[in-house]
């Protein structure tokens, strides 16, 4: 078997994923930043592994951030049986504490928001999780 042909074949997936990663990086770095308010979808199990899973509370989100003042609900997150489900990666060691803060958000008036990098027509990419306007790590330290 010709080595060049093999190399070409074996490097195709490598180049495809590398290109995808670079495209996502560019999308995240150059998109319009929009802030959305988030809420849980399943009160029994908000955390799944290392991801925090949430839905977007469009009623509390400022739609003036988007063109025509309309929130593009269908462009955000993956459709599941229980609605549109989004994910944000959380290190395991912080997951339980964050969960507790989220469940007590109404008692403590904490607002959870996620900053997305948004390009019309492309899947928005979550960049940052905010608690009362501050990065979640800062909020955990100052709790």
């Amino acid at each position, binding site marked *: 078997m010709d*080595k060049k042909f*093999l190399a070409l074949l074996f490097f195709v*997936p490598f180049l495809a*994923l590398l290109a995808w*990663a670079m495209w*996502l990086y560019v999308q995240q770095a150059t998109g319009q930043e929009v802030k959305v308010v988030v809420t849980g979808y399943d009160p029994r199990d908000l955390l799944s592994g290392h991801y925090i899973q949430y839905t977007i509370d469009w009623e509390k989100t400022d739609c003036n951030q988007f063109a025509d003042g309309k929130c593009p609900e269908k462009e955000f*997150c*993956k459709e599941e049986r229980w609605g549109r489900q989004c994910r944000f990666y959380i290190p395991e060691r912080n997951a339980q504490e964050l969960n507790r803060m989220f469940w007590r958000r109404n008692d403590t008036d904490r607002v959870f928001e996620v900053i997305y990098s948004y390009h019309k027509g492309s899947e928005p990419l*979550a960049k940052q999780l905010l608690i009362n306007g501050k990065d979640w790590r800062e909020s955990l330290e100052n709790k």
Partner: protein
Amino acid sequence: MKIANKLQNWVEQGLISQSQAEQILLSEKSNHSNMVWKWMYGIAGLFIGLGIILIISANWDDIPASVKLFGDFALWAGVIYAAVKNVADKKSKVSEILLVVSFLLVGATIGLIGQIFNLSGGWQSFAMTWSLLGLPYVFFSRLLSFNFCWNILFFTSFNFNFIERVLNYINQHLDGLIMAIAVLSLLSYAGKKLDESANKYTLLPKAFQCFSMFTAYVLVFSTCFWYNAGIISLMAYIVAFLFFGVRMFMAVKTQDMLSFKRNAIAVEVYIFLIFVSRFENLLLSGFGFVLAGLAVLALIYSLRKTSKYIKTMEVFHG
């Protein structure tokens, strides 16, 4: 040692001389001791590899995303480079390991990208992307188990809702069961035919054949638990026994002793599952199973005396 007994038998039958037997035994012992050292090196390598993985995992959250991505792609590039060299040089054992690792790195890289960019895709999109991008590595592998696992990964990426509806239909309708077994058997046959021409290039058709037949067996065994009572469950058992019977008949026809044995064991396990699912009592199931085994022995005895097919089996069984 088994090999020593076999060699002694062959010497007694005059197939080989005593000196040849001694040479073969010496060679086997030498191979065995080489294998022991190889295994020890392998175990040491496994410990070191696992240790590195654990150290990285412990500090995973502190590693910047760019470093994670760079490390992953650099490792993968190295593995691909080694795989290209070994596959081209036809070094089968090393190339198989490298192909499997390359395939696993496809999945790991997709997962890593999903984690870094907080992508929301579920298992189906992940499995489909992994199976399609990993296809070049599977294609060149001669490991049937690896090809089989790829089939499982690929078919789990299909729409679960559709599969659930199909299974619900089969669960309640016997014609659904018969149709599913027929379709899977046809797919297995198609895979076998494709394998005859493609085997020297890839094992994917053979793995597809095995996967289709494996799924058929899973469906057949599920009949023990799906159909609750009455005539429909009895008909389902008859369908299952017919399936096993046809498989055993085909094994005798193609003189495939291994397939015949596997299906004979499958029938015994199936009978056992019937008793377990019906009686829900281990003691009664045990009695039932012993009685069924005695019935099978009686059937075999009568068949040996009268059936030309069992006599054919004796001829090739030697």
